[in-house]
């Protein structure tokens, strides 16, 4: 039976994994249709930057935050632990 912290970690891992999947779907995937202009109309901009480029940067930030959260709260060093770092 997994301990309570392990169950919480697993739940958090699943939640972050789902969020990462959503980020993949929204960033490079069909989610970007939300900012695709109608045919014939000018592409949108966001703070002076093409909206699609800003979209890519934004979803990268989401992915980076999710990876940082996974590393901090979900991923373990493993049973053998760290034997010291560096090269």
């Amino acid at each position, binding site marked *: 039976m997994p301990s309570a912290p392990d169950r919480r970690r697993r739940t958090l891992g699943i939640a972050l994994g789902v969020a990462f999947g959503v980020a993949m779907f929204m960033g490079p995937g069909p989610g970007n249709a939300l900012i695709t202009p109608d045919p014939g109309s000018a592409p949108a901009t966001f703070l002076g930057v093409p909206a699609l480029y800003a979209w890519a940067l934004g979803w990268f930030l989401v992915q980076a935050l999710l990876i940082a959260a996974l*590393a901090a709260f979900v991923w373990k060093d493993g049973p*053998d*632990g760290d034997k010291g770092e560096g090269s």
Partner: protein
Amino acid sequence: MIPTAPIFAAADAAAAETFAPAAKVALGVYLLLLLALGALGYKRSSGGDEDYYLAGRGQGWIVSSLTIMATFFSSFALLSAPGLVYKTGVAFALFALNVPFGAVLVYVLGKRIRQAGVARGYVTPSDMLADGYGGSESVRLLSALCGMAYSIPYVVMQIQAGGLVSEILFPEAENAFQWGAVVLAAITMLYIMVGGMRSVAWTDAIQGSMLMGGMMLAGVAAVAALGGIGPFFEKVDALPAEALTVPGADGAWPAWKMLTICVVASLGSMIQPAQWMRYYAARSAGALKRSALAFGIILPPCFLIGVMLVGLGGRILYPPGVGEGGAILASEALGGTAKDFDKILVVLLKDYLPELLGPAGAALAACVVVAILAASMSTADSSLHALSAIASRDLYQRYLRKAASALELAWVGRGAIAFGTAAAVALVLKGYGNDHFTPIAVIAQMGFLAIGFSTQLALRSSTNSFSAREPPPEPPPGSSPAWSSCSAFRRCSA
């Protein structure tokens, strides 16, 4: 081919005079450093194939992360990626979002692969895959052939890129392409043969740093060439609508296709034989965790803020032309054909860095061109090293001489490196300037086949290996029996 005509304007004569000697110095220092690291790797080695192929399974996170990054990014990062943005526009910038997914795989798959490798003494991917299928010889053979099919195209394409870079560095030299390809191949072969994985990883660390520095510098140069961030994006906003939206100017990148490529390319890249062996070589799961973090947070900005801006800036500075049937062609400044898009980064840097910074800019441009060479070598060395492990352990020892000693295997591995390098060089030289020589295109397709096949094997085998080797975690009450298998996508009990 990369343009070999003089690129510097007459007003930049001083810069042009600086570029050639700076390129020679940068290249000389770089190549000497590689050879020195090869020798150092040899001195530090303790003998044995585990040391030669996996650096004694003792790589810390700094070297692990840099060698994983350098193996992931080939010359594609500095030549093809900006070329594709130049050709299609912002749509291809979304491709950078495959990198964070690769980072997740470094830990999620890498940790389990490493854990099984340590527990069972695996050295090659085939060791683990065959074991995962109950010791199946067919799977072993298939995965070995698949690994070779993945590695060979990479080696060929990187050596070819080395020849092209040599043409840029030494435009006046006779047979610069041929000499460049041969010298790159020979030095790469030498330091792998001498120092094994330790040398490959150390040189990858240097090459990876150069590559990332070069990518960021190129992006900054592109923005500076257009007057800074504000003017840069003003001009980008004025580009044709199809260059700023999905599916891109050539219509090649609809969203579902981009998503598929991001997922499959990442998965295929992160389980290629060279990366797989890096997971075995990591000192600890913690080293892979930190590698994944570095990979996911440092590399994407190199793409998004580095080379992608080169492609967009290039569209403004060198507007693409239109050929027969509406096909997009590169600007005349790049060569004017549909094969010239990949030159955008080099042409832009050589044109504008000297203009911005004078001789110092020419020297920096030379360093970035050497970084492209580093990108080629870092992928070629990893693939050749993996190829030698597959040839010696999976094929020679398994099917020709089961009783082969460690020394004999090491020499067979070195022989495979020499043979693989020589064959790749021969293909590249034969294909140079010969549009009708198709084997290179065919073996490039082999790489895609290998990605598809190995992706399927890895997931299934990872599941089997771990359920067979480790005590499964306790299933939660009421869960199905299938829950208890410890798969690649489910944490194993520690």
